[in-house]
């Protein structure tokens, strides 16, 4: 039999324990006895909200999820009546294709244990894999007679997946891309989503859109309300706006090449602040041929508010992000009853070399009041006979009378300052 014993206890966060609270009126049979007991019971908080203050050591292994920290307490105890020498403790976490040592080298130093003496170590390890994990604790020691003994104990546990992330991309009329990320809690209890950030790929710049912002641009609150709790099976949706960064402006074709948008960095917490952290792999958007094929068309200048039946101008920029020079033909698309093109409806454009941009001035006549969409244009590659259609170029607000106040108010609706 062994002189040394190992015991291991997983250290999930301590929970707050509450006692059973039963009170009554002093006129009832128990009188004030039960009431006084409740007041004197440290496990029954005063006032009696049911939210205790008594920390309780973990009573079961519980669940463990990817991204959380596996912590446990290892005790090596000399349960014999003799001194034991050169006691070495090793702890390893074994996963499907790797073994990770959990104790530092100095902690493996040889110790001597008197009878009833013990070694007590705490291990913490951030779990980075899903599936079966095996904690192996090995002890090696020398008895009085000089004979050596060793043994191992194995503890097997499963690491589960905590979150399900679903993403959706929306391309805006400008170069902005909106990412909607739905994060679903698939653990067995409620979680607190502390942080959800989008770390953009190098060509992009991110603006998170999940806060309520005060007039002075200071953050007041998240859009999710004061209690940031996500219950099991619930999904919380985050919105991010991505725009090409300065890197991409100088090199427009870089946007075309990469489908990578960025990574989501998620931090959540559960009972007593138990922390979990995950990063998604690179999120990718589908590149539509018409969006980032060979041309990039942007509205460089357009007024927000225009007066009814008063001509206004817009400026389009057309960038060649293909591999060869382009000869393009510009046509206006039909169907825009609210605004009409007030210039030549069909024209050849000058030859556009690779990587270069040309600008086109166009005039329009607004014929209807209200928020109107400017009907689009069609660009045709005259050599390949391939067409690129840009239907909803921009929006303008058409009014009878332009005042400064209206201008300012309505501008907020046409063009959000992001």
């Amino acid at each position: 039999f062994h002189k040394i014993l190992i015991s291991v206890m997983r250290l999930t966060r301590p929970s707050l324990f509450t006692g059973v609270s039963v009170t009554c009126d002093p006129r009832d049979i128990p009188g004030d006895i039960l009431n006084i007991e409740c007041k004197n019971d440290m496990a029954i908080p005063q006032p009696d909200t049911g939210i205790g203050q008594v920390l309780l050591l973990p009573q079961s292994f519980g669940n463990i999820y990817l991204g959380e920290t596996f912590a446990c307490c290892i005790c090596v105890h000399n349960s014999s009546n003799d001194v034991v020498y050169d006691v070495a403790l090793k702890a390893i976490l074994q996963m499907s294709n790797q073994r990770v040592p959990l104790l530092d080298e100095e902690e493996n130093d040889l110790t001597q244990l008197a009878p009833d003496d013990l070694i007590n170590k705490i291990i913490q390890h951030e779990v980075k894999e899903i599936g079966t994990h095996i904690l192996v604790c090995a002890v090696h020691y020398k008895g009085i007679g000089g004979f050596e003994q060793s043994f191992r104990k194995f503890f097997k546990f499963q690491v589960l997946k905590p979150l399900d992330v679903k993403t959706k991309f929306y391309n805006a009329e400008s170069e902005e891309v909106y990412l909607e990320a739905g994060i679903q809690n698939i653990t067995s209890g409620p979680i607190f989503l502390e942080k959800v950030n989008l770390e953009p790929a190098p060509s992009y710049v991110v603006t998170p859109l999940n806060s309520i912002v005060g007039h002075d641009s200071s953050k007041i609150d998240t859009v999710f309300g004061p209690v940031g709790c996500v219950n099991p099976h619930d999904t919380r949706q985050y919105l991010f706006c991505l725009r090409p960064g300065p890197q991409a402006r100088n090199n427009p074709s870089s946007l075309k090449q990469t489908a990578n948008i960025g990574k989501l960095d998620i931090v959540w917490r559960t009972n007593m602040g138990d922390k979990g952290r995950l990063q998604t792999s690179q999120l990718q958007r589908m590149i539509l041929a018409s969006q980032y094929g060979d041309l990039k068309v942007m509205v460089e200048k357009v007024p927000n508010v225009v007066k009814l039946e008063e001509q206004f101008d817009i400026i389009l920029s057309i960038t060649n992000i293909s591999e060869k020079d382009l000869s393009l033909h510009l046509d206006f698309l039909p169907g825009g009853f609210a605004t009409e093109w007030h210039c030549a409806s069909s024209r050849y454009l000058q030859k556009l070399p690779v990587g270069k941009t040309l600008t086109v001035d166009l005039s329009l006549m607004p014929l209807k009041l209200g928020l109107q969409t400017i009907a689009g244009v069609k660009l045709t590659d005259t050599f390949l006979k391939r067409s690129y259609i840009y239907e909803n170029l921009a929006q303008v607000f058409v009014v009878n009378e332009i005042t400064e106040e209206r201008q300012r108010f309505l501008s907020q609706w046409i063009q959000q300052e992001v």
Partner: protein
Amino acid sequence: MNIEDNILSDITSSISHISLESDRIYDGWIPSESTKEVLASIIASPGNYKVDKQLLVTPNIAIKEDFRDPIRNLLQNYLGEEAASQRRTLLISSVTQDDRGLRQLVANGCYHAAVNLTTQLLTVYGQGEKRSDQPCKHTVHSVQLWFTRIALLVKLRRFSFAEVECEPFGDLNSPDLYFEFYPEIYGGKKGSMVPFAFRLLAAELPQYLGKHTLALDRLSKVLATCNKIIENLMNGLTEDGSEIYKKEKREECIKVWKLRRLKVLYSLTRCAVSLKDFRLSSTLLQALLKEDKESTSGLFSALGRLCLNLGDINSAQEAFKKHLEHSPTGGNYDPVQGLLHSAFISCAKNDFGNAAQILEQAHKISPENPLVINNLGVCLMFVGKIRDAIRVVEKAIQARPEKFLHEALVLNLSTMYELESSAAQKKKLNLLSLVAGHKGDGFNIAALKLQV
């Protein structure tokens, strides 16, 4: 004491109290429509009205045998007959077979013996085992006995038994639970025989069996009735809105019902917390902050702990700050609660070493505080100081077993023993002996982690 004596005492008490307002204040309730009809018919033609049995309450005792002292059983199994025979605890035979004896058993923590005594007393009322076919006569006292019995079963965590025995009472609104049902005994007295605490207990009970939504529903109904009663009283009517109530005592009545209403809010909060419904718990705490101005600092402390249960450390810190802002200052200030808070925050940040240091400070200020001792022990476990943890808790328990043999401390200590060494069993049995020497039969023996 037999059933006739009880009814006699009820008659005398009701006659002497019929002119007094004091009982009346506590007995108000709003009967359901069907109950109102039945009671009205009885008043109209007393003695002649035949009531549908389905509407009445016929409770009976579901527990087949008297409870035995679980601590004595453990002693017998693990330490032998001699140790068991040295166990001293109150039994039914040690006390008078009446309310006073019942109170004595409860005061000494002998809940099992107390339940056994209620079995005897209720059997005298003809409501013991195997009486479900016979109609029952309820009195204030018999209903009080049922309440006491079920309350003790809940304290003993014997929730299934409590549910089974509480179930026949329904929603505590049946006609035979009102004074008007027994005109020959209570004269013209009106009102409900059911103590308000019984209504709360019956409403809360389902949560202990995992049926939280049912408990929330029942508690909401009780809350709604309290609100209606308060409204009626404020409008100068009786609780059930049937008559004008112009007495001066109306103010006191309103006060009583406002306090009761507050109790229901606390019950709802406990249920929401147990369900881990953080949104509902938070909403209820906000309501309590508005209604219970005397408990503001305590409520902020609770809010902070609720945030920690969820994992929202920042909100917890803000709530703890508000607790401080609303705490008494100067000489009345007790720093221990603030230190407990700081320790919780450190735990949440995974800095158990710092938490332990903070609690050592608190321990110096308040060396006999069981909460500090318990939490310090737990934090020491998380930094690999198991022997220190055991020492802190053991020292307290051995010095003052009366005070420190709390089920949570015992459970934590038993857990520490199990991890520490092979001598765990021996040490847990020492604990058992200590419990046997100082605690009544209601102690939660599961805390010792011994195979029963």
